[in-house]
């Protein structure tokens, strides 16, 4: 919808080949435009914020600490308000570790206080910038350098936590469905309060798949029901991409080296869980999240 919008991120970033965080970042800036202040923690997105004298952003950007993206956002928004600077987007752009683990407290606090800011979690399901360490968002069974036998625990449901707090707008997104993401970011920017978008961003480096398969992986996550696309505005659920017939989970898993250690019974159990969850998920359309 905004392909003709001017680029607000320079070319020639040093992100990995096939990086889907970069796809999300570029789409985000196409929608939000130049009146935007971006905050990135030390993470893959810090690559855009830059090194030395170089930066990727053509908008003001602040390199934050890892756990306080949302606290900086709260301060920036409040500062803009008291100095009469209006119609500016304040965006936190953090990875899964900086969001669901170390950044959770600041995020929860800022959402509770109701500051107007957009928080985008690009979720590559591990600490990828430090070299593939397990996070609270790493799925069960996935290999990382700190879960050499596969992660024993499941993925933290951060969006559920924020919705339980009563956040006015929250959505999932995918690097494989950019139009869907762009509609959501446009909606988030209109919310007079906090908004949250959690985008699954497959990572060729950490998930162990060929860099040419980023979009395929992103789409498969949605089409297998691993990563359903929806939004919740004022507590009402809207499914933004309904999958009529789910593809087999194994199609998603087999392309990724990180799931190589999963046993067949584990895959079957996961597949069964997806079927149950997806049916329940479809039933949520138009209903209250907290019902």
């Amino acid at each position, binding site marked *: 919808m905004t392909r003709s919008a001017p680029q607000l991120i320079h070319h020639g970033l040093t992100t990995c080949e096939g990086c889907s965080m970069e796809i999300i970042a570029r789409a985000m800036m196409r929608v939000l435009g*130049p*009146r*935007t*202040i971006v905050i990135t923690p*030390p993470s893959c997105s*810090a690559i855009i*914020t*830059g*090194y*030395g004298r170089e*930066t990727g*952003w*053509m*908008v*003001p*950007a*602040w*390199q*934050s*600490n890892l*756990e*306080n993206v*949302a*606290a*900086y*956002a*709260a*301060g*920036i*928004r*409040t*500062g*803009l*308000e*008291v*100095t009469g*600077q209006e119609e*500016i987007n304040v965006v936190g752009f953090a990875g899964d570790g900086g969001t669901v683990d170390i950044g959770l*407290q*600041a995020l*929860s*606090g*800022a959402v*509770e*206080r109701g500051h107007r800011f957009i928080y985008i979690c690009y979720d590559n399901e591990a600490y990828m910038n430090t070299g593939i360490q397990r996070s609270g968002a790493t799925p069960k069974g996935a290999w990382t350098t700190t879960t050499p036998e596969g992660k024993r625990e499941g993925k933290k449901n951060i969006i559920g936590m924020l919705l339980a707090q009563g956040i006015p707008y929250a959505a999932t997104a995918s690097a494989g469905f950019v139009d869907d993401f762009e509609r959501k970011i446009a909606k988030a920017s209109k919310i007079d309060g906090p908004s949250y978008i959690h985008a699954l961003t497959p990572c060729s480096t950490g998930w162990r798949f060929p860099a040419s398969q980023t979009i395929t992986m992103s789409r498969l996550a949605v089409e297998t029901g691993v990563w359903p696309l929806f939004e919740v505005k004022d507590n009402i659920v809207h499914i933004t991409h309904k999958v009529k017939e789910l593809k087999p989970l194994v199609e998603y898993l087999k392309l990724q080296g990180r799931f190589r250690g999963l046993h067949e019974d584990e895959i079957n159990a996961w597949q069964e869980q997806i079927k149950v969850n997806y049916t329940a998920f479809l039933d949520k359309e138009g209903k209250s999240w907290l019902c």
Partner: protein
Amino acid sequence: MPQLRALEGNLAVAEGARLSRIQVCAAYPITPQTPIVEYISEYVRQGMLNAKYIAVESEHSAISAVIGASLVGARAFTATAGAGLALMHEVTIVAAGNRLPIVMAIANRAMPSPWSLQVDHSDSMGERDQGWVQLYAENAQEALDFTILGYRIGEDDRVRLPIMPCIDGFYVSHTTEVVNVPDQEQVDAFLPPYKPKHVYLDVNDPISVNNLTSPDVYTEIRQEHFRALQNALSVIDDLGTKFGDCFGRYYGVVEGVALDDAETIFVTMGSITGTVRQAIRDMRAKGEHVGLLKVTAFRPFPKAKVRQILASAKRVLVIDRSAGLGSEGPLALEVKGALYGLYPAPIVYGFIGGLGGRDFSLVTIARAYKKAMEMSAKGEINPRAIWIDSKEGEL
């Protein structure tokens, strides 16, 4: 018209913040600082202060939020103490490294463990190398004045740094004293509105701030920071004098009392200074040649001034209100460092006391003086700190 009012130290800080027309306050409650931000939130509610108050969920977020506000051009304030300051540690140097003139009042509180609600300087000493200006207030009047002066120093082009006015928990924070409260017009004349100059987030002039650097530039950026702190030494004296011209109370990096013929000089910071003032009056009445050097600016440390003032003394008694675990009291270390290479040099006796709120009384001061005089008579130097008010002896 300035008013004489009975204020506790915390209220004096809040009044200083109100008169400085702060625009954002983000804070988390912690004893003994809490009343400062309670007063400020009440000023905001009543419309006495045109500001926004952010009731953050931690001190870590408090300092982060005021940095955010400062980055977009707001005059920002916070306050904390003890463990709260330690929680901020990672972020305090972000404020300083980005040269943001935030004022953060510290109601000094001893660090756990064991837990204590009461004063020593172990909390702010933990921040001493984080690149802030630290001003230690002796009383409620200085608590108010250093808040206003803090913004003026911090926003000065030669400095551009955050400022930490430190007030002793309870002895200053909760003690009611007569305070001369300036009127708004006077303060407005002294402290113009804040304008960011080098570091800012502005959609009309986009820059990327605080990003990763290489070994190629990190040293020079640190050195610029160091230089700003060096500049602050003369700026504090300069603006402390201008403050005096406006308000009648003059400040500088140090204050000397009865130094002219002093053979023995006490060196102090914070509220202990008031007790030592009384002690030297009493001792002088008995013919003792004693004086006092109060260190107001611990960071930047006024090495040259301290050296110059202490050079002619025979002995120097430094009182540290923090343990300096594993070494000596930090003030004693600084004083010894300032005297390095001087010959002949006074003998420095470092005393540690008043920890965790223990009263550093006239009796303790007399004991320290006696101890130093005895050691001095025997020609003893004492390389280690003397724990002067310990029930288990002096170590």
